[in-house]
């Protein structure tokens, strides 16, 4: 029997591999491996003070202190942002917490035109012309959305455009829970 064992090894190893493929296949319904998990989760949001768009005021991290807020990185040149826009408006209405916008690597004039054309869902917009704050937040592109709790910690990070499911199933329940605490 012991002599036969080595001959069984390849089959066993392959069975393990197959098991992994099967698990990955079943899991792929809910889990997208190309999605990057954010390491910023449960970390304090980086410090910043942003200029505003045009002559409007910007905002700083201190403005967010003590409240639950949503922060959305967007840009006028980004096509998915345009598609996401109506959802942002809905989110701003239903979440019951302020939504701040950060205009990522954009020309202010373009961003102003973009917001006047589609309407602004944001309480305040800050500009990040060089994308430097984006790097501090661990942003890989736009749009991305963050949820920051009262203590200033990042509690949610979505590196993809919002979807109705993401809003209803993830963001809104989390906002409610965080506001109670």
């Amino acid at each position: 029997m012991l002599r036969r064992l080595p001959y069984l090894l390849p089959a066993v190893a392959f069975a393990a591999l197959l098991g992994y493929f099967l698990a990955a296949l079943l899991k792929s319904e809910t889990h997208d491996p190309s999605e990057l998990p954010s390491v910023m989760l449960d970390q304090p949001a980086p410090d910043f003070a942003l200029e505003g768009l045009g002559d409007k005021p910007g905002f700083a991290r201190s403005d967010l202190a003590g409240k639950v807020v949503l922060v959305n990185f967007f840009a006028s040149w980004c096509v998915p942002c345009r598609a996401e826009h109506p959802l942002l408006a809905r989110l701003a209405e239903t979440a019951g917490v302020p939504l701040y916008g950060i205009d990522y690597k954009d020309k202010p004039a373009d961003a102003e035109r973009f917001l006047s054309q589609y309407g602004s869902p944001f309480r305040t917009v800050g500009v990040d012309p060089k994308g430097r704050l984006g790097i501090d937040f661990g942003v890989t592109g736009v749009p991305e959305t963050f949820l920051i709790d009262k203590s200033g910690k990042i509690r949610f990070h979505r590196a993809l455009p919002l979807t109705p499911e993401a809003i209803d199933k993830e963001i809104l329940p989390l906002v409610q829970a965080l506001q109670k605490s």
Partner: protein
Amino acid sequence: MIAELGHFSLALALMLALVQSVAPLVGAARSNLGLMALGGATAITQFALVALAFAVLAHAYVISDFSLATVAENSHSTKPLLYKITGVWGNHEGSMVLWVLILSLFGAAVAWFGTSLPPDLRARVLAVQGMIGAAFLAFILFTSNPFLRLSPAPLDGQGMNPVLQDIGLAIHPPFLYLGYVGFSVAFAFAVAALIEGRVDAAWARWVRPWTLAAWCALTIGIALGSWWAYYTLGWGGWWYWDPVENASFMPWLVGTALLHSAIVVEKRDALKTWTILLAILTFALSLIGTFLVRSGVLVSVHAFAVDPARGAFILVLLAVAIGGPLILYAIRAPSFQGGGLFAPISREGALILNNLVLTVCTFTVFVGTLWPLFLDAMGGGKISVGYPFFDWTFVPLSVLLLVAVPLGPLLGWKRGDLLAALQRLMVAAGAALVVAVAVAAIASPAHALATAGLALAAWIGFGDLSEWAERVQLLRVPLRTSLARARHLPRGAYGMTLAHLGVAITVAGIAASAWDQERIEIMHPGESLAISGYAARLDKVEPIQGPNYTADRATFTVTREGALVATMRPERRLFTVQRVPTTFTAIHSDLLSDFYVVLGESDGKGGWTVRIYEKPLVPWIWLGCGVMALGGMVSLSDRRWRVGAAVRSRRATAAAAGD
């Protein structure tokens, strides 16, 4: 109507493949020659049917029949004819048809050339080939039908990805598939041997040429892919350890091990079960390579979810095609009797070392490719495995093997004399030393490891040539006698010498890349840039109109010490349909180094970003692959394969007559 003909012939081919998988097997079990003969007939007819289906599909691409979904999605009426044809396999559905076409071609070839095989072995091999064919045909018909109609048909197609419109990439998949699918023959022989419970030297003699042919094609396919990446991607890299590249590299590594271990089976009747396992693994990795790349699982398992039916089908197919033979192996292999005995220091021992290291190298590439995905699926962290990992693992492992390359052929079968072998390698050691000293003296900046790499290349190359010199007794007998000996050396010996020389050439090309020179500047017309002794002057940048693209074309005059070296015209193309800018690099190669010019963006003020590289010995990377493949082909032309076949045939007929 024509497209339906293609669909119908694929369906018919599936029926035949099913017959081919069962009838010969039953025939072999019952010694029924009629049933066994069905294998050959169905294999050849199946090839004709698949070829017809492929021709129909190609026809649809050529006449731009956009009522077919795949044509509409992947082609465009303005595309050059050549790329309309190569576009057939530039997408999932079409590439699967090409895969089956090549599979059925190999099946037909076994049926055609295998008439001298013992009928039961031939029947079983064909049956296994039939099973693979049936699985793939079913996969195509049920999940990836290339003949799906669109109604209404769009006016024009969506066009083909512009990067695919390149001759290097266009012919890369067929070679890759010739390799992948070619290994199916070795696999079929291995499974047939497991069913029969017998492996002998004649079996190995049959397996080797098929494996060799597949290996040559795969070598060329991988080299083409790497060369394509080198000249299209525009930053001069040629290997990225990308999952897609790794997927084709793994079967090559195990296939190389298989080639070597089959020699031991043939000459010494040893390593039988190991060789069978390698044959199964080689094809298993080919299958995994085909599917996981095609379905995108290596980049993202998510692609499965896009089409769960496809994912499930692939999984079942892999389970049956690989799991089945491995279980059969676990049951049957222990009863195989090992043959010839040998000492650890011997040709056999050297080939075992070769096999061990190649297998470990394959495993390294395998975990390097799959571990990040596995970790992610198991809820671990996200990691990247890039070239530094392979530099630390794969490279030292392969150096271990490369150092031993010249030693192996100098060791005798059964019991080798290591000391004598090393003495015969004095010239090679001297050459390596001279190269090391010369490179250290001349090359700047100094690169210790790269210098060692060049010395290693010299060691392999000169060691390889010493072995040839040894065989013809060069300088020890009169030159005429040596020449006569050289003439009478078997082609197989020349094949090995060439293939190992190719390895040396490739190693030199890789090592020398440490001395790549690079300049990235904004240039204005009239300005010159100096790089490693050359001067490149940007004469002008002008807009030009291609068949399906517009482009900015720069003209560079490259001189060396005032003498004209080349006029180079890199382009920046914009394909009209997809609006995607692509770089078209200009490369001037004199086989000792490449001068590589890329035109970047305009700064809008009359300046252009320009990247210029001078890459010493880089053409040797692919040249070496070519020499390796050539060695394989020379070996393939060896008369012994046919002589061996004839001997076996006489024996088989004698046995048949005795029945």
